[in-house]
């Protein structure tokens, strides 16, 4: 194979890798995963093959609980780590896990990540 051709193909492939990793991040924060019941805000995130929605927006300054739903989840998203809370747990394969977030402050987003580090989610507080 010609060296120049190879270099051109390589550059093309590198761009594809870039798109796979950094592009196409669906910012589907439109999903209605935040609700307030009896003065407590519940943020629900589904964990299976990643965390959905990846980015959520919730209100700041009210007591908040995070609910992680698993449904036959065996992959990395079952191994949840939330560094800012010192939380790390292997979630049950199927079920709901409730995590108390206290009263989140404005502008301090909460990040959760799976044990291996390739899935993550973010909750912004406004």
């Amino acid at each position, binding site marked *: 194979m010609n060296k120049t051709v190879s270099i051109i193909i*390589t550059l093309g492939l590198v761009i594809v890798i870039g798109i796979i990793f950094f592009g196409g991040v669906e910012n589907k924060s439109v999903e209605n995963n935040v609700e307030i019941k009896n003065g407590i805000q519940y943020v629900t995130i589904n964990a299976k093959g990643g965390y959905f929605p990846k980015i959520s927006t919730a209100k700041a300054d009210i007591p908040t609980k995070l609910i992680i739903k698993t449904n036959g989840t065996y992959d990395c998203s079952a191994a949840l780590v939330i560094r800012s809370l010192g939380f790390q747990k292997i979630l049950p*394969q199927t079920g709901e896990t409730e995590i108390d977030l206290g009263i989140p402050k404005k502008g301090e987003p909460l990040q959760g990540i799976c*044990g291996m*580090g390739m899935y993550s989610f973010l909750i912004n507080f406004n």
Partner: protein
Amino acid sequence: MLKTYTFYVSGTHCASCKILIEDILKEQDFVKSVKVDLKKEIVEIETDSNQNTEKLATILTEKVKGSGYTLSVEKQVQEKKSDGVIWQAIPIGLVFLILFFIFQKSGILNFGIGGKTTPITSFIIGLIASVSSCLAIVGGLVLSLSAKMSQDNINDTKTFLLFHIGRIFSFALLGGILGLIGNAIGINFTFTAIMGIIASIVMLFLGLNLIGVFTKNKITLSLKIFNFFRKIEHKTFTPLIVGFGTFFLPCGFTQSMQVVALSSGSFMSGFLIMLAFALGTLPVLLLLSFGSASFAHGKHAPLFFKSAGVIVLGLGLFALLAGLAGLGIINPLFSI
């Protein structure tokens, strides 16, 4: 009468190589004096032998081959050749990486397995795990070690068997222990993340090695590590230990199964669940290790080693960044 011959030497990777080559060659009766110049990669010998130069090179190579050196009359054009190979290997490696990550992103692997976990379901979970992103770290490690061993002409079949036996046996045993004591071992996230980072560094190192960066530039810093690897590669128990170590590598599936084994309540049930899981991961890993061995002994060996090196580097980098993100050292850079 004495004649002086100059040969090109390849395979020298350390300062002590000079002494070793000189010692071996001096033992030959017909060799009167030896001088090795590592910088120029030449060996000068004085001899009273009447053989022609080619014949001498072959005879002397026989003596030093065991230590990994080759003498030749003409400077080996390998470097030029491998330059060409690397430009073929990079696109090939990248294509495999792209296919792998697209496969992960496709969500095909995310179907649920409901109900109670039995040895049969854990076998299926093992099958899924073996093509999941866990493959990036466990498979990457298997591929890099296998390719490296084949490249070094170590008895690879025996080594691979020991690795897989060690892996399956320790999974089953540790699963049994988990079921027995009902307590966590190896589930500490920070510990597994650190194990993952170590594994990814090994992968990056072996990947560079497979591509041939180290042999070309002879980075002195790497020599100690290099010798360390050379040493451990030859030991029988090393593949067993590495197989054992894969239990602690970060892989969501492994960790989930550990929890299942943990809550199973008895030695036998934990043993069977982890055994089935390990057996489920076996086909893909066997394919990786023996597949690479057959390529390594085939016609396209140099291309295979370099392509494998590119793949391993990519996976190693992925695992390293993910591991650092998992430890909270860096922000998660990507999401697949």
